[in-house]
């Protein structure tokens, strides 16, 4: 209940949650209510500016930008969720183990630091090249591999401070096994930092997915995606800037909302995290 009241009290947060809810609804239901088939070509309607018939105009194939942007929301959210899930699946176990067992931590953190020496997009590009062909699963792996180490770091440093708590010591004194302590006492208490970090992972990963699609190495161009649309619109940027403007606005709004939500959750769930994340 506290969170609902917080949302209503803070205008920026209200805005963020409003935008995200609308985007989720669009992501789920847009294929059923968009005015045009997002893939329907119409050579007589090429490069039409925004107007009553086409709210966001049309592209060089006469496809309706409005319909394509809305349908592109689905791909964006599926990828954002999958990448965050990927980061969690690797980040939580590895982070907890490194935080709890000093030896594991010493070795693993060095490797994690080394992976993080590769700037995000360079690593993602290299992984896409290694895996060979564009596609959803490959994008999830490539971008997930970039954000998983950051999740490991957050979980690691949270575990380091959690294991010093008196209740962990008490559990150990009572004869609890390491496994039990890890699952029942540490992982459970990681919820706040992990939720916050997942929100940021989502925000950064959809931005990176858009960059990959923009560069033409993400998902195949026939799937409507915001980054892919911007890539296709580049040739017509001066004549028909709307092809690029609208997908970019949707992308920026999504990222902004997730960042606002992440900030608010961080302050709400655990003010100590301010310095950590």
């Amino acid at each position, binding site marked *: 209940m506290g969170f609902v009241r917080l949302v209503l009290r803070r205008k920026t947060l209200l805005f963020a949650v409003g935008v995200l809810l609308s985007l989720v609804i669009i992501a789920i239901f847009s294929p059923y209510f968009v005015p045009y088939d997002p893939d329907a070509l119409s050579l007589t309607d090429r490069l039409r500016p925004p107007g009553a018939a086409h709210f966001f105009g049309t592209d060089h194939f006469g496809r309706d930008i409005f319909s394509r942007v809305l349908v592109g929301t689905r791909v964006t959210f599926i990828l954002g969720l999958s990448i965050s899930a990927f980061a969690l699946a690797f980040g939580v176990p590895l982070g907890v183990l490194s935080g709890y067992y000093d030896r594991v931590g010493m070795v693993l953190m060095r490797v994690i630091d080394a992976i993080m020496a590769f700037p995000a997009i360079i690593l993602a590009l290299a992984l896409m090249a290694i895996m060979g062909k564009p596609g959803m699963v490959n994008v999830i792996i490539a971008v997930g591999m970039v954000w998983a180490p950051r999740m490991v770091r957050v979980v690691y440093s949270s575990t380091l401070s959690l294991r010093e708590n008196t209740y962990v010591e008490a559990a150990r004194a009572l004869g609890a096994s390491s496994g039990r302590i890890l699952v029942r006492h540490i992982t459970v208490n990681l919820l706040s930092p992990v939720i916050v970090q997942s929100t940021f992972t989502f925000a950064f990963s959809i931005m990176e997915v858009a960059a990959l699609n923009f560069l033409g190495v993400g998902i195949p161009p026939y799937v409507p995606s915001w980054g892919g649309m*911007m890539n296709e619109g580049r040739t017509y940027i001066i004549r028909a800037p709307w092809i690029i403007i609208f997908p970019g606005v949707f992308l920026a709004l999504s990222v902004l909302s997730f960042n606002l939500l992440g900030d608010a959750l961080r302050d709400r769930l655990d003010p100590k995290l301010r310095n950590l994340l």
Partner: protein
Amino acid sequence: MSRGRDMLSYVVRRAAGMVVSVLLVVTITFVLMQLIPGDPVSVLLGPNATPEQIEALKRTWGLDQPIWVQFYKYFVNFFRGNLGESIFFRQPVLRIIGQRAETSIFLGIMALMVVVGLGIPAGVIAAVRPNSWVDNSLLLLALAGASIPSFWLGLMLMVLFAGKLHLLPSSGYTSVIATGNIANLKNLILPAFALGFVNAALVARTARSSMLDVLRADYITTARAKGLRDSVVILKHALRNAAIPITTVISFTFASLVSGAVVTENVFALPGVGSLIVQSVLKRDYPTIQGIMLVVAVLYVVINFATDITYAFLDPRIRYR
């Protein structure tokens, strides 16, 4: 005396850490390249290659040897500055990167000027009048800046300044060093702004919060009580002490600038290292991809090391950690 010893032991410890990081970076790149499915040689030669041709090329590249021999040679070559040969350009990778470095370095420096020139003043102004309308609008702008993809900002700037206003060139870049024409830097203004703005937002947020912390300190109250002018208190007393966290964030922006540059160079058709890696990915030029990964990551490790050492000089407390 002990001060010097502390410092020395700190530098040695950090240098050892740096060496380990470089070794790991080299290893990770090697492992990644082993993950390429299938056989890069047959992929490269195409379906019409005869087994003899494939064998011959494998022998030239040393791919017929056991993996640990390959790894050892790879390591030795790396430390000799030999990063292999580009499949597409048929030239040493390091030379190609060198040819593309000028654009990226100038772009990076100009973007950094945007980061510092916008970020620090914005953060300081916001911190001086916390919760005023100036502060709130700057904060909102910074938040928006951190959420706008730099390539989209670049495209929008292109539409506005090159398309509508015809003020600045929208793409391409000719070497300043080769032609001696410094006016070529004009081509980097829009890309540098697009790239810098996002990071300026981060720096502004940090500058604001560290300035706020410092402005609450007793010595600021004392300085004000002495009757010093506001500008002196803020610039001389406060900003100086807020400088360390701000510098940290600026040094962090390296990785983010490199990432942004990859896409920005592509948007503005700049012949830099960023557009080189994208081309190499599209052409499956694995040696070049690998070479760029190595150069960038090693640079990152070295910059981190240099920043840490600089802090230890500036702030003695750091050495004891």
